[in-house]
C-alpha cells in the first residue's frame, strides 16, 4: 500500500509523513502511550525523588542549604569516606574483572565454562551474605584466620569493606567485560599482529582501548553500587562509617528525616557526577562490535599475561567458592565457630512465617519481572524508534533509578505516597510499584540494546510490504525483543529476589519478604538460620535463572535467524542489573 506522496526510497521525512497521514487514529494512540509512560515515570520515579529533595532542602517551606551544610559538617568526612571506598572498591573490581575476563575469553582453558558458571552463580548475592561469610572466615574467631592460622586479626574497618565490596561486585563486572571481549572484532587484533606488533603491544594498544567503553560502564555501575551499599559497612565497617550507613541510621535510628534526606542528597551528588561524566564521554566512544562476525580464534595471550590473569582468576575463584561454601555449610553447622557437628535443626526450626515470606518473595519477583520487563520493552521501543517531545527526558528519567541509592528511593516512596491522592502506605501496591520502577532500567537497557542493533529498515520493509503498524509491532518488533525480554525478566527477577535497600522502608507485616526475614536473622545473630535463608534465596533464584537461560539458549540453537544473531550478541553486553540488594 503506497502512501500519498511517498516514493520507494525510505527516508525519515516520508516515514514521519506517512505515519501522520495514514493512521491518525494510531498516531493518537501512540501519543497517548508516550504521555502515559512519561506520566507514570514522573509519578513513580520523579515524584518520590522530589519528595526527598523537599524534605532535605526546605525548612518551614523555605529553601535552605542549612540541612545539607549541617550534614556535611556533622558527618565528619562521611562523604570523603564514601567516595574513597567507592573509588578503591571500583579499582579493585576493575583489576580483578579485567584479569578474569581476559583469562575466560583468551586462555582457551576448559575451565572457562565452569568459571562462567561460577560468575553467574555469584552474581546472585543476597544481602549481608558476603559480610557474614567474611566474619565467619576471617573474623577474630574466624575459621581461617583463627582456627587454621591461629591469628587474631581485627577484620573491621575500611579495608574489610573495600575488599568485600571489590570482590562482591567483580562477578557482574567480569560478565559484562566478557561480553564486550566476545563481541569484539577479532580481525582488528589479527591486523595488528599481521603488521608485526607483538602480542603484548597488541593487547596494550588494540584490545585495551577497545575495552574502554566496557570499562567505563563497569566502573560506573560499580562506583554507584558501592556508594549505595550500606549492608557491608554496617556489618564489617566497625568504626568506619559511610554516608549510606549514616543516612540509613538517621532515618531508621534517630528518625531524623530531614538529616537523612540531606545525606541522601549528598550521596546522590557523586553518583550523578559519575553518571554525567559517563554520558559525556561515552557519547564519543563506540563499541566496535557492530555488524561483524567474530573472525577467527581470539588472539592467545602472551605468556606473562596468561600467568598473571590465571593467578588472579584462580585466587578470585577460590575466594568466592570458599565464601559460598561457608554459607552452605553454615546452614548445617550446629553453632558456627563452636560446634561444627552437622545438623538439620536450622532448617527444621524455620518458622512457618519464613516459608510464607519466601513464597511472597517469589511471587513478588515474578510479578515485578513480568510487568517491569514489559514496561521496559515499551520504554525501549519509544526511545529507539520514536521521535517525540520529551524523548530525552524519558530516557534520563528511565535511567535514574539505576544510580539512585536504594534507601533514597525507599524513603522517597514512603514520603511521596503517604497522603492523598495516592495514599499507598502499608499496601502491597507500594512495595510492587517500588520494585518495578526501581528495576525498570534493567528491562529498558536490554530492550534498547537489542533495538539499537537491529536495523529499523526491516520494519520499513514490512511497512512497504503493506503491514499495518500494529502488525509491524506485533510481527517484527516483538519477536526481536523476545530475547531482551528474557534478559530483562531474568535479571529483574534476580534483583528483586535479593532486594532490601528500598523496600525495607515500605514493607508492612503482610508484605514481608525473604530478605527481610534474612535481615532479622542476621540482626539477631542467628547465623545458622541466616545461612539457611540465604541458601534458599540463592537456590530459587538460580533455578529460575537456569530455566530461562536454557529457554534462551534452546531458542538460539533452533532458530538462528537474521534477527536473533545481533540480539544474542547484545545480550552479552547488557546483562546488567541495578544494585539489587545493596
Amino acid at each position, binding site marked *: 500500500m503506497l502512501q500519498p506522496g511517498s516514493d520507494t526510497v525510505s527516508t525519515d521525512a516520508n516515514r514521519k509523513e506517512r505515519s501522520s497521514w495514514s493512521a491518525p487514529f494510531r498516531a493518537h494512540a501512540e501519543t497517548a502511550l508516550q504521555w502515559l509512560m512519561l506520566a507514570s515515570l514522573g509519578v513513580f520515579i520523579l515524584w518520590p525523588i522530589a519528595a526527598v529533595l523537599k524534605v532535605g532542602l526546605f525548612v518551614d517551606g523555605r529553601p535552605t542549604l542549612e540541612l545539607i551544610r549541617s550534614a556535611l559538617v556533622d558527618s565528619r568526612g562521611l562523604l570523603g569516606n564514601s567516595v574513597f571506598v567507592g573509588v578503591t572498591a571500583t579499582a579493585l573490581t576493575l583489576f580483578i574483572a579485567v584479569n578474569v575476563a581476559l583469562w575466560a575469553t583468551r586462555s582457551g582453558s576448559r575451565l572457562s565454562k565452569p568459571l562462567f558458571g561460577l560468575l553467574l552463580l555469584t552474581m546472585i548475592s543476597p544481602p549481608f551474605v558476603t559480610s557474614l561469610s567474611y566474619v565467619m572466615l576471617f573474623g577474630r574467631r574466624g575459621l581461617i584466620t583463627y582456627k587454621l592460622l591461629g591469628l587474631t586479626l581485627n577484620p573491621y574497618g575500611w579495608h574489610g569493606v573495600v575488599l568485600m565490596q571489590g570482590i562482591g561486585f567483580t562477578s557482574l563486572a567480569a560478565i559484562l567485560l566478557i561480553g564486550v571481549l566476545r563481541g569484539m572484532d577479532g580481525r582488528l587484533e589479527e591486523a595488528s599482529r599481521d603488521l608485526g606488533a607483538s602480542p603484548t603491544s597488541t593487547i596494550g594498544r588494540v584490545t585495551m582501548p577497545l575495552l574502554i567503553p566496557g570499562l567505563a560502564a563497569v566502573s560506573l555501575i560499580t562506583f554507584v553500587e558501592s556508594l549505595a551499599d550500606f549492608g557491608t559497612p554496617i556489618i564489617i565497617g566497625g*568504626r568506619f562509617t559511610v554516608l549510606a550507613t549514616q543516612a540509613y541510621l538517621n532515618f531508621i535510628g534517630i528518625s531524623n528525616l530531614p538529616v537523612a534526606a540531606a545525606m541522601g542528597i549528598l550521596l546522590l551528588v557523586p553518583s550523578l557526577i559519575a553518571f554525567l561524566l559517563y554520558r559525556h564521554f561515552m557519547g564519543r566512544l563506540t563499541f566496535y562490535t557492530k555488524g561483524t562476525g567474530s573472525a577467527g580464534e581470539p588472539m592467545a595471550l602472551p605468556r606473562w599475561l596468561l600467568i598473571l590473569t590465571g593467578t588472579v582468576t584462580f585466587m578470585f575463584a577460590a575466594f568466592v567458592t570458599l565464601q559460598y561454601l561457608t554459607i552452605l555449610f553454615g546452614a548445617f553447622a550446629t553453632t558456627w565457630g563452636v560446634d561444627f557437628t552437622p545438623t538439620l535443626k536450622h532448617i527444621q526450626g524455620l518458622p512457618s512465617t519464613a516459608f510464607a515470606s519466601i513464597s511472597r518473595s517469589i511471587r513478588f519477583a515474578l510479578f515485578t519481572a513480568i510487568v517491569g520487563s514489559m514496561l521496559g520493552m515499551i520504554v525501549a521501543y519509544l526511545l529507539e524508534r520514536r521521535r517525540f517531545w520529551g524523548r530525552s527526558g524519558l530516557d534520563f528519567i528511565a535511567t535514574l533509578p539505576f544510580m539512585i541509592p536504594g534507601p533514597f528511593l525507599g524513603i522517597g516512596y514512603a514520603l511521596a505516597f*503517604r497522603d492523598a491522592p495516592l495514599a499507598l502506605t502499608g499496601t502491597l501496591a507500594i512495595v510492587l510499584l517500588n520494585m518495578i520502577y526501581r528495576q525498570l532500567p534493567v528491562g529498558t537497557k536490554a530492550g534498547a540494546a537489542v533495538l539499537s542493533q537491529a536495523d529499523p529498515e526491516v520494519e520499513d520493509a514490512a511497512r512497504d510490504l503493506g503491514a499495518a503498524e500494529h502488525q509491524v509491532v506485533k510481527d517484527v518488533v516483538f519477536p526481536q525483543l523476545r530475547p531482551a525480554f528474557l534478559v530483562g525478566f531474568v535479571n529483574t527477577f534476580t534483583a528483586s529476589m535479593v532486594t532490601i535497600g528500598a523496600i525495607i522502608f515500605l514493607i508492612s507485616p503482610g508484605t514481608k519478604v525473604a530478605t527481610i526475614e534474612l535481615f532479622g536473622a542476621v540482626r539477631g545473630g542467628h547465623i545458622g538460620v541466616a545461612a539457611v535463608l540465604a541458601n534458599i534465596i540463592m537456590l530459587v533464584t538460580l533455578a529460575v535463572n537456569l530455566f530461562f537461560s536454557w529457554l534462551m539458549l534452546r531458542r538460539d540453537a533452533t532458530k538462528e535467524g537474521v534477527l536473533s544473531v545481533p540480539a544474542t550478541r547484545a545480550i552479552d553486553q547488557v546483562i546488567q542489573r541495578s544494585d539489587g540488594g545493596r
Partner: protein
Amino acid sequence: MKRVSLLLSLMLAFSLVLGGCATSEPELAPEPAPTEDTTDEEVLEVDPELVGTTVNVFAAYGGKEEIFDQFEEDTGIRIEFLDMSSGEVLARMQAEAGSPIGDIWFGGGVDSFIAADNEGLLERYVSPFAVNVPEEYKDADGAWTGISLVVVSVVFNTDVAEEKGAAIPETWEDLTKPEYAGELLMPDPSISGTAYTTLSGLLQTFGEDEGWELFSRLDANMPFYAQRGGEPPTAANMGEIMAGIAPGIATGADEGYPVVTVFPKDGTPWWPAPVAIMEGASNLEGAKVFVDWCLTKHGQEVLATHDPRPPVRDDVPMPQVLIDTGFPEADLMTIDFYEIGRIRDDVIDKWQKDFAAKK
C-alpha cells in the same frame, strides 16, 4: 466473685507498695506465685466477629513466632508481623505521619513509645487486665502498657577473657579497667534503646558529673560504637569482642557459645517492654484483644516461656533461666523513664560531641 476480689486485693497491694510513684525500684517476684492465685482463671472473651480477622504487628521480641501462634490458637485472630526495632517503627510512623502502618507495636525501647505518644501516634487503650500491672510499668493514660521487663546485661565471652587473662567483671567500674581495653562493645545510643537506657541510667544513678566521668572511662575501652542493637551480644558470642552490652541475658550460652551473663552490681539498667495500639489501627478491636491477651496470666506465661524475661505480673513465675543467671540478686537501677525521655536530645548531643566525634 473470686476474680473481682483478687483484682481488688492486687490493686490495693500495688497502691500500698508502690504508692503511685513512677520512679520506684521494681518489685520482682523471684518465687512462683502462691498456689491459690493460679487456680483463678481469667476469662478473655473474643467477639466471634473478630475470629479470622488479622492483626498487623510490628515486633521486637524473642520467640515471637511461637507467641503469635499461641495467640491465634487461643483467640482465632490471625497475626501478621514484621520484625523491627522500636527506633525503626518510630521512624516509619513519623515518615508516614497520618497513615497507619499497622495495628500493634509489640516490644522495644520504652523511650520510642513515649516519643510516639508525644506525637499522638498511639491509640490510648486501658486494658481491663492492666490493673495487674504495676503503675511504673505502664502509661497512666493507656498509651502503652508494659508486658515484660528488659534487663540490660553484659554478655561476656570467657574464652576471649581466658586468652587475654582478664577476669569476669562484676561492675561498670570493673569494665573501665585496662584489661578490657578495646574489648567492650556498646551500640550507638542514638540508635539503640539499650544503649541509651544504659547511658542515661548511669547518669541518673551516679549523678550527672560522676556518671559522665564513669562513662568516659568506659568509652576509653570501646573500640567503636556498634550500629545495630543486636550486634554486641552477637559479637561476644562469636568472640569478636570480649564484652557486649545487650538487652536480656546471654542466650548464646544455650547454643554452645562460651558466654556468661553479667548484671553489673553497681546498677543494672532495665525498662518495661511495652505493647501499644497504633493510632488509626484498621483492626482496632482485634488489637485490643491482643493487648488484653498479653496481660492475662496465661498470656504472660506464654511470653515468659518463649522469651525469658521478668514478667510484669507478680502472679506469674520468673523464668527459671533468669533465676539461674542470678537475676534476682541483680541490683536494678532506679530509672525515671519520662525524665530520660525528656533529656534525650541533650544527652545524645553531648554524647555525639564528646564521644562519637572522637572515635
